[in-house]
């Protein structure tokens, strides 16, 4: 079940084929909801569930869907899964669901979901597709959590809403970097993560 090939499907998205920094998929939501760690973690879990199950379902029906209408079929199945996730979030973590606002709905058009369906699930058996979906969701989550930690720690001195930077620092003149909370810094943080990753892994460099 977890053969070497399937394990590779899970581990690859963490580095060599990370959905955000290498495949350029699913950037919209990665930037908008990373002001706080808690939002980032819940978003990452939601996306993982949706990518995993949409890959599974579409891989099962891949031989019965006519090619011309496949985009609409994919969108409808993904939308149904996102509605389930949205209702779950509203029921169990209502405050986070309010903060994520439109970005839960936008998982439907998140390029990771569609990208992995098109690139993997339509050509592979259900179980590897499911593993691939979960792996890509987690690879996406890794970047989301990294950005969330950087932005919340430097921007408001907290993690998961708990103060990390001690009061003594503030007394000594330390000031939170308010710029990190603003939207533009998310872009620059991602730029720096890409820079860091590619200078360590030189085969990813573009010409």
């Amino acid at each position, binding site marked *: 079940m977890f053969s070497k090939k399937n394990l590779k499907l899970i581990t690859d998205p963490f580095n060599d084929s990370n959905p955000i920094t290498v495949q350029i998929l699913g950037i*919209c939501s990665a930037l*908008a909801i990373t002001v706080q760690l808690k939002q980032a973690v819940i978003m990452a879990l939601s996306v993982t569930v949706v990518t995993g199950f949409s890959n599974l379902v579409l891989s099962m029906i891949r031989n019965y869907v006519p090619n011309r209408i496949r*985009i609409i079929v994919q*969108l409808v199945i993904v939308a149904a899964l996102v509605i389930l996730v949205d209702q779950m979030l509203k029921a169990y973590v209502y405050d986070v669901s309010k903060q994520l606002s439109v970005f839960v709905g*936008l998982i439907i058009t*998140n390029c990771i979901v569609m990208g992995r369906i098109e690139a993997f699930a339509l050509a592979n058996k259900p179980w590897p597709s499911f593993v691939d979906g979960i792996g890509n969701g987690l690879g996406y989550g890794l970047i989301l959590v990294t950005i969330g930690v950087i932005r919340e720690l430097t921007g408001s001195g907290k993690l998961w809403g708990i103060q990390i930077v001690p009061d003594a620092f503030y007394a000594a003149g330390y000031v939170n970097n308010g710029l990190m909370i603003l939207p533009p810094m998310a*872009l620059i943080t991602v730029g720096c993560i890409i*820079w860091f990753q590619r200078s360590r892994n030189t085969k990813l460099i573009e010409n």
Partner: protein
Amino acid sequence: MDALFGSNAVEIQNSSRTNPYDSIIMEYFNAFIKAIFIENMIFAYFLGMCSYLAVSKSVKTAVGLGMAVIFVLGFTVPINYLIENYLMKAGALSWLGPQYASLDLSFLSFIMFIAVVASFTQLVEMSVEKFSPALYASLGIFLPLIAVNCSILGGALFMQERQFSNVGMATIFAFGSGFGWALAIIALAAIREKLRYSNVPPALRGLGISFIVTGLMAIAFMSFMGITI
């Protein structure tokens, strides 16, 4: 932000003493400018980033995709507004009869919005292909991309969240957001064409520098914050 809207409302009331239509026109114009510059789809909400980064290598294709986004966003948001207000919202079905007034179908709105967007792009693609091959050659290849562009569904979801007072405001918002998106992608494409001649560190080439350039552009766009007309 609330303070801004408040002061704006006072201004509108003052101007309405001179000409009753002025206030409405100013309100629409203000909403249009706000959607383009202050609440720019890319720089404030990061919607449609995937195609923004992937299709911004040359100005010509960027213009094509920008036009297609303006067109599709401008038509799907009003359609979704009507669906939301006359079919989906709590009590929206009361025009059918009093027994339907308690229905709330809003949990179905995601699937409805995406169905409208996907079928609209398919319809436009087919009709453009049939009636105007020249336009199809320049615009047509972008239309399938647009069905999964976050900014189109994002426009519909923002429309749902912000509860616009009438379909006119929703249309103005949609066209403004489309123009803002097109402006952003054309600007980035122009910068990337020039970047080809500069010496960027190898690890930053391509994707990395595009992110940082977009970040700097977003900081510049933040200076529009707080402008009202």
